[in-house]
């Protein structure tokens, strides 16, 4: 299968790769750690020692931003992988394995859909505040439903198609039928959903950080940094701007990458 990307999608990919490079290189090259305080140099503007300035405890913003971006990407990636795999698998299973499986999965999905996604995440996150694992599980649980519904709808049509029926009659197994018939039909939608899903996962984590339910201090997280730096917005606006701009860039990058297909 070949991927032909539009220029806007390439642009989105470049933004995301740039941020990723910043996260990796930043954490690796910086001489400071994320919790290393220097109370003699607080709220400094960008300078030669601290390229992005320091926060209200004199911690290096460059190091903290790199760590936070890395954390966001890590969470986005694992959430997308998990929910895409789970949603796709269950969607194909529901469409392919008859009415009973479809019915049971349908009921479960409808229950999940009846509750607002952010509320479910909030509930689970509040059980164990600051746990990355819990955040990951909660966000994945909310996100796989989208994949499930799209994949199920597309697969139903493919399962009924003469092309798949003909392959089955010629003796090809289920994996082959998935590979040749179902996957080519669902792949574009799954990739688009994954791009939006990545943005959503990161945004959800930032929202939870912003209300102190997500990742806990002293760790660096984009939402948490926003709320921590909020009191200093008039003295050091350059600090508050950093996490906000990065969140906007990440979401923008993912949405560009998704393209206009859905």
């Amino acid at each position: 299968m070949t991927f032909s990307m539009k220029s806007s999608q390439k642009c989105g990919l470049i933004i995301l790769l740039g941020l990723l490079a910043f996260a990796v290189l930043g954490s690796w090259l910086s001489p400071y750690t994320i919790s290393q305080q220097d109370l003699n140099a607080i709220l400094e503007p960008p300078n030669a020692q601290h390229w992005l300035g320091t926060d209200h405890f004199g911690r290096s913003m460059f190091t903290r931003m790199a760590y936070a971006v890395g954390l966001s990407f890590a969470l986005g990636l694992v959430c997308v992988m998990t929910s895409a795999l789970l949603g796709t698998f269950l969607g194909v299973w529901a469409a392919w394995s008859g009415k009973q499986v479809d019915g049971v999965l349908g009921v479960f999905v409808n229950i999940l859909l009846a509750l607002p996604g952010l509320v479910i995440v909030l509930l689970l996150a509040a059980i164990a505040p600051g746990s990355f694992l819990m955040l990951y599980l909660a966000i994945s649980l909310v996100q796989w439903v989208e994949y499930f519904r799209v994949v199920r709808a597309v697969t139903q049509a493919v399962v009924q198609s003469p092309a798949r029926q003909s392959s089955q009659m010629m003796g090809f197994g289920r994996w082959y039928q998935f590979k040749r018939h179902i996957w080519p039909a669902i792949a574009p939608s799954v990739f688009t959903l994954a791009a939006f899903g990545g943005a959503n996962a990161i945004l959800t984590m930032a929202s939870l950080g912003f209300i102190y339910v997500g990742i806990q201090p002293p760790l660096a997280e984009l939402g948490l940094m926003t709320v921590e730096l909020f009191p200093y917005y008039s003295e050091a606006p350059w600090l508050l701007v950093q996490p906000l701009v990065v969140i906007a860039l990440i979401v923008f990058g993912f949405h560009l990458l998704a393209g206009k297909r859905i």
Partner: protein
Amino acid sequence: MTILLKLTNVAVYAGDSCLLEPISLSLVQGRPLTILGQTGSGKSLLAQAVMGLLPEELALQGEIEVLGESMTCDERRALWGTKLVMLPQEPWNALDPLMKGVDQVQEVYRYVHGKHQREAMALAQADLQYVGLAHSGAKRPSQLSGGMAQRLAIAAATAGGASLILADEPTKGLDASRRLDIVRLLQTRSAMGGLLTITHDVAIARQLGGDILVIKAGRLVEQGDAQTVLSHPEGEYTQALLGAEPRVWKEASFSVPLPESPEVVLNVEKLSIERGGKSLFNDLSFQVKQGEVVGIVGESGCGKSSLGDALLGLLPVASGRISRLIPAAQPYQWLKLYQDPPSAVTSSVTLGKLLEDLVGLHGIDRGRIAPMMDKLSLPEVILERSCHGVSGGELQRFAILRALLLNPVFLFADEPTSRLDPITAKEVTTLLFSLARETKCAVLLVSHDADLVRKTCDQVIAL
């Protein structure tokens, strides 16, 4: 007699290459004009040129006069609906799927003629009655059969009062029995104005009468009065086109005789099938022998395709018994050929890869492929393309190739040629049957074409 439409040296170019060579014609009131030709011969380009619908990358030359005035593309577009109208090819794609039939006609009266709602509704009802849909006005297009949808589309398209009707393949994808209705309807409409029909179906051209133009690969090959041209064709191509009609095929045109003392492949006893709680047929019993071609005929919707699917185990049976009597045959040797080749072959990989998959799965001897492709006159190059890059005829022959490589004992051919043009259809049918004979494969043929079944089948089952 007024001349409604006159084309003078109209040609269509894509860059430097000529898709449609200069052609001149005139359409007079009350005398239908038919353009006959194979798919891909540039017939539809002509209709698009007249309507002003040519894609931008194509260039139009020559002069088009509508109702005695030479007009530019934009001027012709302004006539849409009221003077000039084109019937859609596959109406179930052109109608609004969510709107009741009568509303789709009623809208034309309201918005084109500016009539009041009640009056428009009455006129629409009258129109539907005229096309025989009086009781189906409240149905949505998906609840109508193909023929009914086409009649609805004709009613909606002609409600604007256009005197000049262009019909591009008006019967494509319709059952043979429904085709006549559409042609009759078009005929009555054409008596009031001009009708330009574009088709590959000789039967339609014959029925419409009037004048005829035969086009091959963008070039006019023959022109004249329909009766004369169709009964005494002069051009070689016209003769081939006429000779491809099942009506005039020589009986038993297969060189290979039935195998001697053939074994029985399939035995069906008292079979009944139901679909959606409705019984399709009851107590059907028959036998199919090796190498035999069995035809199934019947009205559309009588369960012909369902019978074939049931024999292959794709549909449940209500009662009765189907016994497969060749114990050595594997399940994958019971196969089906589909009506619409592009929908029966995946477009995700090249045809060559699909063939490779099959060879790998069943350990087929690669040496058999080349001679078989020769026989089916399939060029090597198509293996490098996906199913979108080859014609319907080639794709159907590719489907036959895949089926035959598995040494089938039974092949269910569900209208295998109904979407192909006549010359290709004849080639494919003859090839399929003679190859099946050679390999002792039984074929169950479902067709609407009674002539085809009568000329080719050893046994006919009427449902």
